[in-house]
């Protein structure tokens, strides 16, 4: 039944989708290539497919300067600890909410779900953090967002589908809820916990709003926000940009553009590295979310 017009469409469709794919992929590829190119060689015209004069000088410069290393470790620290806290917090809370002898569990659940629809706004949120003396602390990265309603709903739904007999058996054998949670429920729930962990980790790594709003101190700068500051100091007028470039050339053997590219690669790298393998988890997350929400 395939007519000529259908065949034409099919070909055009492949071409169009391929172009779309290139538009989404090539910019990252280009930036990676640029970051491995000799900063001076690419000034006149960059390598579009392969690095021009392959070098690691951009990365050497970055990783020997403390003002990049420290933000890098802050970002890693918040991602690791923030993800762990969110995971433990949401899982324990969700488990508690599934237990019938938890007082007011329905009420707590409704109150929690409501947080998805309401937000007090920027200024009240800021003043709260200020009153709690959490401004300019590492805590602000990992505590306020610890309990996430969306994550909790997904985990709770999964817990409710676990066979109840296993738990009853453990209770009869005299295990407490804590023991059951750690040695029975958590191991059985690895799929959902892995999905949530990935979402939370990417969210943590990418988050910079809390840095902008609550932490002005240099010692708590995250990698994301450092990159933004670096980008914004690049002026939009030709003259200043040319001056910066000239300065960069004289002082080091690098250019602001090359450094920008290299930092960008470092910031993307963790997400880029895990993404192709974990894409199905992301998709799974949105599917459950679509069904639920």
């Amino acid at each position, binding site marked *: 039944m395939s007519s000529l017009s259908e065949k034409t469409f099919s070909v055009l469709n492949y071409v169009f989708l391929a172009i779309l*794919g290139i538009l989404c992929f090539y910019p990252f590829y280009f930036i990676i290539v640029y970051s491995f190119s000799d900063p001076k060689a690419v000034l006149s015209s960059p390598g579009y497919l392969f690095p021009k004069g392959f070098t690691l000088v951009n990365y050497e410069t970055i990783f020997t300067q403390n003002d990049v290393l420290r933000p890098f470790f802050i970002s890693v620290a918040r991602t690791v600890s923030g993800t762990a806290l969110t995971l433990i917090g949401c899982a324990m809370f969700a488990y508690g909410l599934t237990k019938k002898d938890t007082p007011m569990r329905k009420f707590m659940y409704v109150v929690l779900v409501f947080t998805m629809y309401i937000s007090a706004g920027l200024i009240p949120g800021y*003043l709260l953090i200020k009153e709690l003396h959490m401004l300019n602390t590492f805590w602000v990265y990992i505590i306020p967002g610890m309990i996430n309603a969306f994550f909790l709903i997904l985990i709770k739904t999964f817990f409710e589908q676990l066979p109840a007999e296993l738990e009853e058996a453990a209770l009869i054998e005299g295990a407490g*809820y804590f023991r059951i949670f750690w040695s029975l429920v958590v191991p059985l729930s690895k799929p959902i916990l892995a999905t949530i962990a990935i979402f939370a980790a990417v969210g943590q790594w990418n988050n910079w709003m809390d840095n902008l709003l609550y932490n002005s101190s240099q010692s708590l700068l995250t990698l994301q926000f450092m990159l933004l500051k670096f980008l914004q100091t690049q002026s939009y007028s030709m003259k200043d940009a040319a001056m910066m470039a000239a300065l960069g050339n004289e002082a080091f053997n690098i250019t602001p553009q090359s450094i920008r590219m290299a930092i960008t690669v470092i910031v993307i790298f963790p997400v880029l590295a895990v993404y192709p393998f974990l894409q199905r988890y992301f998709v799974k997350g949105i599917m459950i979310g679509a069904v639920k929400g």
Partner: protein
Amino acid sequence: MLMTVPFFLLVLVFAYVPIFGWVMAFQDYFPGKGMLSQSFVGFKHFERMFADDEFYRALRNTLVLSFLGLLVSPAPMALALLLNEVRRKWFRKTIQIITSFPNFISWIIVFSVFFAFFSVEDGVINKLFLELGIWKTPSNILADPSAAWVFQTLVGMWKGLGWGAIIYLAALAGIDQELYEAARVDGANRFREAWHISLPGMLPTFVVLFILGIGGMLSGGGFEQMFTFSNPMVVEKLDNLDTYVYRTGLQGIAFSYATAVGLAKSLVSILLLLGANAISKRINGSSVL
């Protein structure tokens, strides 16, 4: 169970306690004094809001960006249709994975990518086109106010299109295959199948997202995108309500005034959401909320 209490308190503290801060919108908040010992000023801040030109500018930008966003909101649906027509599974999967990647990077990275390509001095596009002689003078689209709205809409599409399509692909996967078979028996070609079966199959999802989009109309452009892409040349086009609240409130330290603007925004947003939901309920009998 004791296990839940600390986490519940955490939710109360970080999501509900700040709501009491709305009182500030009716006070002249003075840092250092308690919330209750502030002086009440009625609707003074709301009056100031309606008298401020920059507020109207922010409102205009927000609404224009929302409108453009809603205008291109069927695009992910179209992409899902096209992906669905691809018979080679590896090709479809690859395109799906690649196009949804930009959704998982921060706006700062998005800005960095666009800066690398479009900036006036170092941007690749400028270099290439000047070199090839296609352009005589460099183009500075990141600082061009007349293109700012459309450009930002395209940037938003670049980031969200692929991921947006995935949710529609899920809807397509849920369509009963017998419908397609029946259509084929009736002699329908692929275009007619897409139009009469696939599209209606995705419509309920579209309606849900569209209604949520109307509820989010006063967040047009979003804070993060506008904040990262803003510069002195285009701020008149990119300053939306969220960045306006940030600028006046946190940078200008007008806590009470910014709270009033934020509160007004929240209330109108809820009304919009409920209104859109009510209309959808009346038209096709489905409620989102």
